[in-house]
């Protein structure tokens, strides 16, 4: 060996020796110096929480009839650790279990096997195996089914020698009910899987209110989950129980909704869409026009004096049971279909649908004009067939000319031209103030709308409520400038809101229209507002949007002495045994600054609506001597791409009813988008409502004992012992005959089984409703169509 080799061999020897020394050193540190610490670490156990989900509180109507309750299901769970330590890795037990509950043994075994992440050749990622494996914490009992029947559960519990490691426990499962046949699904809502990443305090896979009451009252309904703290040894076996806090069941939410009234509302809406509207001519002035085929309707019934919501319907609705967990493939497919349904069945249109209220808005306009002094009850107003607004004639809906009429008649007959007159005068005043005097506009009607609560969400105890829209001068101006700018961008291109470059409209024709619109207004000062902006608004069209609930609360204020309530769907939270935890009452948002005598006069005029005015046909022959019904029709013409004319009418009817000589007890609003005239569709539907609520005209009374003011009674074990009144089967209220027979049926038993027919002839073309802004009139761009599609900003119709 030459010297070089020898030196290198020696070098290697030194290196190897130092490696060995390094190992000695590390061993000395680990075992001698830090040995105690590691010994301690080796004995330390981990703590694992086993969560017991609390029983969710029920959602009950005013009598305690449950909309959402908890069925007890036998949940069969498998303890994977116990199973896997059996001789055959639990094969025999799982096969037996699969046979018992009717599941495929392989699928069952895979579903209870905690996922292991295998390295697989050809893939850089580890793959969770086996397919369908259990992703949760393996110490948590792994649920196999929650739909075992009692027999299966007993078999498992009694024959533990055959089913070691398998347990059956009774757990509560959310179930949705349809008391008396009413659904209220949009209102009650449903549960969704919580995401522990964003939902603090929720574990993976736990459920959480996702919409409606379920979401709004989540904290009350949820209760407190039980936690068993287990100490776990190194191998993952349970060593000891450190603590065990039992689950505390959630509180119940008692609604002011009455299942009987709710059923009545739902059936009235269904009737309006499926029976009334298709059998009506679309327009009283055009006999050749066919019936309408609306797809949606929304209605709400308010206890006018308290602000409580008694019934709230949104048609179409859906079957809440689809959303119950566990969801099947079919359920998920249905939910996916519901999500894309153009009729928006998942939306609660009462709070999320924003509609042009049409002439029902004249309540606000009239109040504003009375307050400002421009209108009074003694003056006479000219009601011509049309007035010139912004250089063009703007006519009454049917061009009717009523001559000189007082304000009462104006309201009863819903004369638009009188309101155009107010609009022109107010516009002139505001124009002078803004342009000439450089002071703030009066915005008379906008201010009154604000007083009536129309410019902001009502604050109802439901999630995702829409705000509605009544624009001030500045907002109208901003919107006009926005549209003008959009036209200019469409014509010549420009910069977007984020500074991005936008190209001109590729369509040549549309570009030409945009050029015209862009060149139309060389300056964008305050001069750009038209009197037409005001005229449209004064009859509840143009940019005016309101939810049915907002309008209902405005009309409730009219009849309850001026109190604009923030309404409530729930009236109490009770503990599981029925003890009151918290009473929930509507709060007064604002009080009208209109005098009581003015409100009384408006109310009187609205009684006239149903006697001699626009609602007279809808309420012809109604026993006003038993129940006095006032109301206001509304027919809002909105842009509608699906209609051949480019417009369709939202049928609106606002109404209040009560014993003669007393303050009205209830207020209702029914809105039927694309339904046609207010008097033709929403009006008859409203009549159905009053018939059922008071048991009139051969209809059974859905509230034979009135509204319940007390809480439901509970026994100590949490069972509801109040017996709510039932509704007789075969009632015309339920044309589909789906009303459930209930115990303690009150009211006259009727054997009628014929399907409901609209109480009014419905074919008379004389039902009047105001029609404004005929197609083509300037500026149609302010006519805004809103389906029940939430809160998107108003768009210019393409027409």
């Amino acid at each position: 060996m030459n010297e070089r080799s020898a030196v290198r061999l020696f070098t290697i020897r030194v290196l190897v020796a130092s490696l060995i020394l390094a190992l000695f050193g590390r061993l000395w540190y680990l075992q001698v110096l830090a040995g105690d610490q590691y010994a301690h670490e080796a004995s330390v156990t981990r703590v694992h929480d086993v969560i017991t989900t609390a029983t969710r509180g029920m959602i009950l109507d005013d009598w305690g009839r449950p909309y959402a309750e908890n069925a007890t299901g036998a949940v069969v769970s498998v303890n994977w650790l116990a199973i896997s330590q059996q001789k055959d890795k639990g094969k025999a037990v799982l096969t037996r279990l699969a046979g018992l509950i009717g599941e495929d043994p392989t699928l069952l075994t895979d579903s209870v096997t905690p996922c292991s992440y295998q390295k697989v050749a050809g893939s850089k990622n580890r793959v969770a195996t086996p397919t369908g494996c259990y992703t949760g914490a393996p110490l948590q009992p792994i649920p196999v089914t929650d739909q075992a029947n009692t027999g299966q559960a007993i078999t498992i519990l009694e024959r533990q020698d055959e089913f070691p490691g398998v347990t059956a426990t009774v757990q509560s499962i959310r179930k949705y009910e349809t008391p008396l046949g009413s659904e209220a699904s949009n209102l009650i809502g449903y549960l969704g899987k919580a995401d522990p990443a964003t939902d603090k305090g929720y574990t993976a896979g736990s459920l959480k209110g996702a919409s409606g009451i379920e979401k709004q009252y989540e904290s009350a309904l949820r209760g407190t989950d039980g936690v068993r703290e287990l100490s776990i040894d190194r191998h993952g076996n349970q060593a000891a129980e450190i603590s065990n806090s039992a689950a505390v069941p959630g509180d119940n939410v008692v609604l002011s909704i009455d299942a009987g009234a709710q059923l009545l509302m739902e059936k009235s809406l269904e009737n309006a869409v499926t029976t009334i509207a298709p059998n009506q001519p679309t327009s009283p002035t055009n006999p050749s026009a066919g019936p309408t085929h609306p797809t949606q309707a929304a209605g709400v019934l308010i206890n006018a004096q308290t602000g409580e919501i008694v019934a709230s319907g949104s048609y179409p609705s859906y079957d809440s049971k689809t959303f119950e967990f566990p969801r099947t493939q079919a359920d998920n497919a249905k939910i996916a279909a519901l999500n894309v349904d153009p009729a928006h069945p998942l939306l609660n249109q009462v709070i999320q649908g924003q509609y042009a209220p049409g002439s029902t808005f004249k309540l606000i306009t009239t109040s504003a004009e009375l307050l400002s002094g421009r209108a009074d009850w003694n003056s006479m107003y000219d009601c011509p067939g049309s007035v010139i607004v912004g250089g063009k004639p703007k006519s009454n809906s049917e061009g009717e000319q009523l001559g000189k009429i007082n304000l009462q008649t104006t309201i009863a007959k819903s004369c638009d031209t009188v309101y155009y007159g107010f609009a022109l005068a107010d516009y002139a005043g505001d124009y002078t103030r803004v342009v000439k005097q450089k002071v703030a506009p009066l915005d008379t009607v906008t201010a009154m709308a604000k007083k009536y609560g129309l410019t902001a969400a009502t604050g109802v105890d439901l999630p995702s409520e829409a705000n509605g829209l009544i624009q001030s001068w500045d907002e109208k101006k901003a919107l006009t400038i926005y549209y003008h700018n959009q036209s200019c961008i469409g014509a010549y291109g420009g910069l977007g809101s984020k500074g991005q470059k936008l190209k001109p409209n590729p369509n040549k024709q549309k570009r030409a229209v945009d050029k015209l619109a862009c060149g139309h207004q060389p300056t964008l000062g305050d001069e750009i507002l038209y009197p037409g902006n005001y005229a449209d608004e004064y009859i509840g069209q143009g940019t005016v949007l309101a939810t049915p609930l907002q309008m209902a609360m405005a009309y409730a204020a009219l009849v309850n002495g001026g109190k604009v309530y923030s309404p409530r769907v729930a009236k109490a939270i009770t503990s599981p045994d029925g003890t009151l935890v918290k009473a929930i009452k509507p709060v007064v948002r604002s009080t009208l600054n209109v005098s009581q005598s003015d409100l009384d006069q408006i109310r009187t005029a609205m009684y006239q609506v149903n006697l001699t005015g626009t609602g007279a046909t809808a309420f012809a022959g109604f026993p006003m001597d038993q129940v006095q019904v006032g109301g206001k029709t509304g027919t809002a013409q909105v842009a509608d791409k699906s209609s051949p004319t480019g417009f369709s009418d939202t049928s609106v009817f606002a109404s209040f009813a009560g014993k003669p000589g007393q303050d009205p007890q209830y207020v209702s609003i029914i809105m039927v988008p694309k339904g046609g005239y207010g008097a033709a569709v929403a009006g008859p539907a409203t009549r159905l409502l009053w018939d059922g609520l008071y048991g009139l005209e051969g209809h059974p009374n859905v509230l034979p004992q009135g509204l319940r003011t007390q809480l439901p009674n509970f026994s100590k074990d949490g069972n509801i012992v109040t017996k709510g009144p039932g509704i007789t089967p075969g009632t015309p209220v339920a044309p589909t005959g789906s009303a459930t027979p209930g115990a303690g049926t009150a009211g006259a038993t009727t054997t009628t089984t014929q399907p409901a027919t609209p109480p009014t002839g419905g074919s008379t073309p004389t039902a009047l409703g105001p029609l404004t802004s005929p197609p083509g009139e300037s500026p149609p761009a302010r006519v805004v169509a809103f389906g029940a599609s939430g809160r998107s900003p108003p768009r210019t119709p393409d027409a």
Partner: protein
Amino acid sequence: MTDWLSPRTAPVSLGGRNTTPHSRVLTRESRLRQFDWVLNIALALLLVLGVLLVWGATHVTLSGKHSTSYLKKDLLNLVIGVGLGVGTSLLDYRSLRAYAPVVYVASLLGLLAVLSPIGATINGAKSWIVIGGGFTIQPAEFAKIALVIGLAMYLGEKRDSGDAPRHVDVAWGLVLASVPLGLVLLQPDLGTAVVLGFMILAAIAVSGAPTRWIAGMMLVAILGGFAVVESGRLHGYQKARFTVFFNPNATDKYSKVEKDDPQHAQIAIGSGGLLGKGLLNGPLTNDHYVHATVDDFIFSVAGEELGFVGAVGIVGLLGVVLWRAFRIAAKADDAFGRLMAVSIIAWFSFQAFENIGMCLGIMPVTGLPLPFISYGGSSMFVNLIAMGLLQNVHMHSQTA
């Protein structure tokens, strides 16, 4: 010791020659007497410890049952391995050179077979050939033997003339060595590849090759290491082993998995303390708190059950084996023998250090078994064949 420090003619060796009463029976010519008995005794102790530790690691199964199946298989492997080792040691020294090309080509075929469809993937690397009956072989292990003999033959041949290998010789040697190395990298079996790399480096270094080759190889090894890690060819778990080694707080999903094993091994070893908890009495071992205690992490069983004393004993015995190997390398009377011994030293020293080091948390995790201790047939066989080669070199240098 090396020639220049301690002449080969040193009169006394720890082999105990001429010092036992049996010298008459075990004549000077007896092959038995010519074994390096210090090496043999150290090996025997290691093998016995290995069997005990395999038993300790497997006497309680995952499901808590008692089992001796691993113990039995390990004993069988041991018997076969000792047979192979003794057989190798008794081979004619000169014929070893003749076997070199055959062994080399056979090992290449084995490595190719692994990459072909008959290769089986276990734990993410395509490193095994299943031969039925529950037996598998790992050709990468046999490639080590091929490299030991092949490199020694090729580089040693040139050295016998007394000249240092020329550049072209080194280059060809590298080419020959790179083929099995490349095939192992393709599996990908990083651990074995690094072992092969150290073997090549050591053999070329001691062959007397020009220094710039040594420096160049080290540079290539470092750059190649980075290239392999960054190539994207590595499995997620392989990369994570580096990630957690350099960044213990890494939280990606692979790192979480790969972090547990070395941490648990350290806890097990540390908790063993000075004297350990007694063979078969390690609760962490018996609970399978540390995974793969039968092969990769078997040192944690030693640490927990035999304590510092036992762990140091194993490291010390491995040190004795390496010390004897150095001695044999130094005393070898031809370059062939010396280079074989040097390759074997590089192999065992790195593999032992890496395996124990990963259990102690000072090296990243790889799938290398602990020589003589870990369960596994292929590994056991080639380890003992390598020891047979060492003995063969030893005996040849005595009789020459």
